[in-house]
């Protein structure tokens, strides 16, 4: 919708060769992977290896994203963003174009993945995401522009990956980049200061987005509107407690949210698992009731045993005491 120079002006055909000015590596463009306000990402070939290249006419964007990716590499082990291979400039038709080269992550974006594979994957992927976010937060960063477009799901193993680190901000600073629907400031539910709860708000909005693929705009009081949006979808209602807590900024860490998310998932008992899926709700409810009463009975038995034991011990001690008195 912007009509000015902020959109990247160039468009390179496949087969174009990008050659670095400083490190002299050659990359052959295969096809475009995506474009945003800050540049274009191409799939490219580098000595037979597939890599992703982000090019931009704005060298500042490139440099600050590289800074973030580098610090991720320092905090190694966890695959937060794509790993960084090269940073360079390319002289093209007399002008300098900055680019960086990173690992090519093949996958589908989160919304498409859930659409194709079902919402069973939702808690799995959100839990994975929270694990990664927790690591990111512990290292002093906040992801910032967290949204389904910036999240890819790889195939085997199925794993969620963050791909665009353009919004990643040091904690305590002002969020660098955001998208309104996922921004708590837009909904009137908090500041734009980079803190873990900022990302966790966005995670809640991602879950909501999965059931409202078209998103929606703010009308009136933000939190009331979001509460209603959750209430209106049956599958969303089951995540209500954690969503509301995240929207209110009440989680102090991603781990905390992850734990509560996993608690919300109901595992059918072993006995239950063999029952076919089409069983009616009534039956299911009856069964869960059954297991509950059985557990209660067991608890009661435990109680009686405990009482007998205590009485016995007291009796013995008293006996010993009497015995000593007599002696």
């Amino acid at each position, binding site marked *: 919708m912007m009509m*000015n120079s902020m959109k990247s002006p160039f468009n390179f055909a496949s087969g174009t060769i990008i050659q670095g000015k400083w490190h002299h590596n050659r990359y052959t463009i295969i096809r475009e992977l995506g474009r945003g306000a800050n540049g274009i990402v191409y799939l490219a070939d580098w000595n037979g290896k597939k890599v992703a290249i982000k090019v931009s006419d704005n060298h500042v964007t490139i*440099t600050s994203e590289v800074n973030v990716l580098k610090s991720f590499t320092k905090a190694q082990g966890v695959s937060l963003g794509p790993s960084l291979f090269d*940073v360079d400039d390319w002289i093209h038709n007399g002008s300098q174009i900055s680019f960086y080269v990173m690992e090519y992550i093949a996958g589908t974006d989160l919304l498409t993945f859930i659409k194709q594979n079902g919402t069973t994957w939702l808690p799995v992927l959100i839990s994975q995401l929270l694990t990664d976010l927790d690591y990111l937060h512990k290292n002093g960063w906040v992801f910032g522009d967290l949204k389904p477009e910036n999240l890819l799901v790889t195939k085997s193993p199925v794993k969620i990956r963050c791909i665009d680190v353009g919004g990643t901000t040091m904690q305590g*600073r002002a969020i660098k980049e955001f998208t309104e629907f996922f921004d708590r400031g837009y909904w009137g539910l908090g500041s734009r200061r980079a803190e873990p709860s900022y990302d966790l708000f966005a995670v809640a909005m991602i879950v909501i987005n999965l059931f409202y693929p078209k998103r929606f705009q703010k009308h009136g009081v933000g939190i009331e509107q979001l509460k209603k949006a959750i209430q209106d979808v049956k599958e969303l209602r089951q995540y209500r407690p954690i969503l509301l807590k995240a929207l209110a900024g009440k989680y102090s860490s991603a781990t905390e949210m992850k734990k509560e998310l996993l608690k919300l998932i109901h595992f059918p008992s072993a006995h239950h698992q063999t029952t076919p899926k089409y069983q009616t709700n009534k039956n299911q409810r009856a069964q869960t009731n059954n297991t509950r009463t059985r557990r209660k009975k067991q608890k009661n038995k435990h109680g009686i045993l405990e009482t007998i034991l205590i009485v016995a011990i007291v009796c013995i001690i008293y006996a010993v005491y009497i015995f000593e008195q007599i002696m």
Partner: protein
Amino acid sequence: MKTGTIKQILLITDGCSNHGEDPVAMAALAREFGITVNVIGVMENDIIDEQGVREIEGIARQGGGVSQIVYSQVLSQTVQMVTRKAMTQTLQGVVNQELRQILGNQASLENLPPEKRGEVLEVVDELNETVDLEVLILVDTSASMKHKLPTVKEALLDLSLSLNARMGNNQFSLFIFPGKGNEVEKLLDWTPKLESLTTVFAKLNPSGMTPTGPALKEAITYFKEKHSVRGYLSRHDDEFYEESI
């Protein structure tokens, strides 16, 4: 490096000026005083004519700032982005100046090897976060802007939200043009919080004239007044950025 103050004029308009001084010349003048001029052109369903676009781009170019033409639906995000982008641009100007002093005339951030560039940019980022910022907002309230004003208000509140998340101090003031009886009218004196705007904006009274040039001129005067008063009160290094741009 000592942190100074960044001074910006943010002009929000939907088309051509038709009264008073040439706004492009006024923007050039502002720059001479160390004030950056950013322009946002707001469209609804109508398209801004070519002349309007040319003027908007001209003002920002001469004023050393950023311009953007947007539909009013995306105004909020644009306003804060343009302001921050212009800040970065100003700070980079300062850094490039320093680099030239150290490394000679040819040096600039772009000409450094990527590794060094990263280190310098971290300094720019740090400054961006901590520098003090003064934004004088000039809102075009001519008749055609009338139904866009609620969106403008929302965008300004959003701007305040974004900037107040920074560590540095912010000062905002708000002028509208044309004003009541005058070409320009001050609605809000320097304040760190734009939230006080809610009441102020209700008073708007859109009329036909668009005196963009005189409005810019008034904005420069207002900046100068602020700084001369402050100059007496304390010896600030406010002039730092003016010299280095």
